[in-house]
């Protein structure tokens, strides 16, 4: 019974946040003179209205889930990894390059591309962790700066040495991947692809890892109480490198599945423009860094975005209502820390 109450309470906060977010959206809708019910109806239809739209939402959620998982792991360890964007871009680029230029059978290329994506995202992230552990450079700042460097570097690679010169369009992109290494679509004609399964499995694995393994416990301890963790013999520097590597690896994987499952090539700006990285961070914040919760929150955020697009197609209300709802959601959820903080204070006195 106690557990049920606890579960209910954990769910209450996000639900309340969603209501407040929708209320804020309703205010915005009425300001531009739209009908609230009709607009939200269009939004719902755009996200879940038909099987096609639903799979569309899931396909958009795929990279957001993976990024959110990576950020969640880093948050749990007490590190603010803001560099998902750069890690994702580098992961996507190396996956594309591996899949295009590596010789061998298709399954080998596919696996190699995924591994390459994970490793390059992980190394880029661990580099920021290393700078913090070794030189005490603020992780939040370095990860932000490394974003710019990574996206510019990837932009250079596809604009000059590896540019696709076969097509007539002079876009900054690599050549198309061979069809044999594409991630299979889950349903014929729908946009959701095998990457979604990978993301879902990753969410469950990360949940089990954090909950039932020693390393997972150490990571949680490091984030929850760094002093206690160091007293208990957890080496912060080493843990930082490991957790940042895994965190970046998730972001790299996100870029990889986007390339292998949706775009089939690396296109400059195709990953940064939709803001997958920041959406992933939002999902993590919404779910309080809980792996399974992050996955659910990511689908919610993706639904808000695809729903917003549907809304813009069919009504006069601009798409940006979704971003207002998202921001209000997070502002409201961040007050959760407070709620438990006050309770702890009361219990102490």
């Amino acid at each position: 019974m106690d557990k049920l109450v606890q579960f209910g309470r954990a769910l209450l906060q996000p639900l309340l946040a969603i209501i407040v977010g929708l209320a804020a959206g309703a205010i915005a809708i009425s300001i531009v003179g739209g009908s609230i019910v009709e607009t939200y109806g269009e939004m719902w239809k755009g996200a879940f209205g038909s099987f096609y739209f639903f799979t569309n939402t899931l396909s958009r959620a795929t990279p957001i889930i993976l990024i959110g998982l990576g950020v969640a792991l880093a948050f749990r360890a007490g590190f603010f990894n803001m560099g998902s964007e750069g890690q994702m871009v580098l992961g996507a680029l190396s996956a594309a390059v591996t899949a295009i230029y590596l010789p061998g059978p298709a399954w080998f290329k596919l696996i190699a591309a995924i591994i390459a994506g994970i490793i390059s995202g992980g190394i880029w992230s661990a580099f920021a962790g290393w700078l913090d552990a070794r030189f005490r450079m603020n992780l939040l700042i370095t990860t932000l700066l490394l974003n710019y460097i990574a996206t510019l570097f990837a932009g250079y690679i596809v604009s000059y040495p590896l540019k696709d010169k076969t097509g007539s369009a002079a876009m900054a992109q690599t050549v198309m991947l061979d069809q044999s290494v594409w991630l299979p679509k889950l349903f014929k004609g729908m946009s959701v692809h095998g990457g979604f399964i990978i993301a879902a499995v990753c969410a469950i694995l990360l949940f089990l890892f954090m909950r039932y393994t020693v390393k997972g416990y150490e990571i949680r301890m490091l984030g929850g109480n760094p002093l206690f963790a160091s007293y208990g013999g957890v080496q912060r520097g080493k843990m930082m490198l490991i957790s940042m590597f895994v965190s970046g690896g998730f972001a790299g994987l996100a870029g990889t599945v986007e390339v292998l499952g949706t775009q089939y090539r690396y296109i400059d700006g195709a990953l940064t423009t939709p803001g997958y990285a920041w959406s992933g961070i939002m999902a993590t914040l919404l779910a309080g860094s809980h792996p399974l919760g992050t996955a659910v929150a990511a689908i919610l955020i993706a639904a808000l975005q695809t729903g917003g697009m549907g809304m813009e197609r069919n009504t006069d209300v601009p798409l940006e209502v979704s971003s207002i709802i998202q921001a209000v959601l997070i502002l409201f959820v961040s007050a959760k820390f407070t709620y438990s903080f006050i309770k702890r204070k009361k219990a102490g006195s």
Partner: protein
Amino acid sequence: MDIFLDASLFATTLRMVTPILLAALGGAICARVGLFNVGLEGLVLIGAFSAIVGNHFTGNVFAAVMFAIVCSLVFSILFGFMSIQLKANVIVVGIALNFLALGLTTFSLRAIFDVKGAYYNKDMVGLPKWDIPVIKDIPWVGDVLSGHSPLVYLSIVLVIVLQLFLFKTVTGFRLLASGENPTAAKSLGIKVSRIQYGAVLMCGVLCGLAGAQLSLGNVTMFTEGMTSGRGFIALVATMLGQSNPLGVAASSLLFGFMDALSIRLQGFALPTHFTMMLPYIVTIAAMLFFKDKGYMQEARKSNESSR
């Protein structure tokens, strides 16, 4: 070597650096009271947008700047309320504020001006350009220092004022104390949360000014997300300058100079991607030499324990 001594290069630097410098000063004050303000980006964006709105409706530049300040103030109060009153994690609140600012400005752009992407109107007046009487006539210096918007000069004055305020006045000392050791400050009867609010408000004013310079000084238009990372760069400048007004000014200038230089280098054979990378790489390299002396660490610790 001619390109490095070109007066227009330095004049561009000065103009580009002003929004970053103003926002970074705001960030520095917040950092000094133990609030690591990641929301600078959003606050500047709000300032930039509301400056254009003010300009559109009043046609008066001064009123536009005032309106920008007021709007940024409102959002900084929100930031303060969430992080001081509700003790929410400052970094999370900052990130959320950035999202909110981006969403709200883009939404309002549609709602008020009925355009998407960018708003530009040729009847809009930008900030005036001031010529400084004597300096104007000195050959090289005049070209660099004269003919900027008033906010550029104001930012230079503010650096000195803030330096004196923080380290030479009683209120400044109280502000430093409430950041360095809130418990000790409280025991001396300093109202810590009131001082924190004051700092957040000051930050709001500075970010409003930064936004106004961005949308009315550098150009006379607003584009979606026009801050494009400047707020984060300001955050870096705050950290590099160790939350010290003079240091913040120096690091902002370094960044602005690299930025202007990278634009200049585009004329050469180097691919633009690498020249655009230059400011970020130099900043990371500079962070190696100027480690932060614990203020950020302090801020980080304080928000870690509140989680």
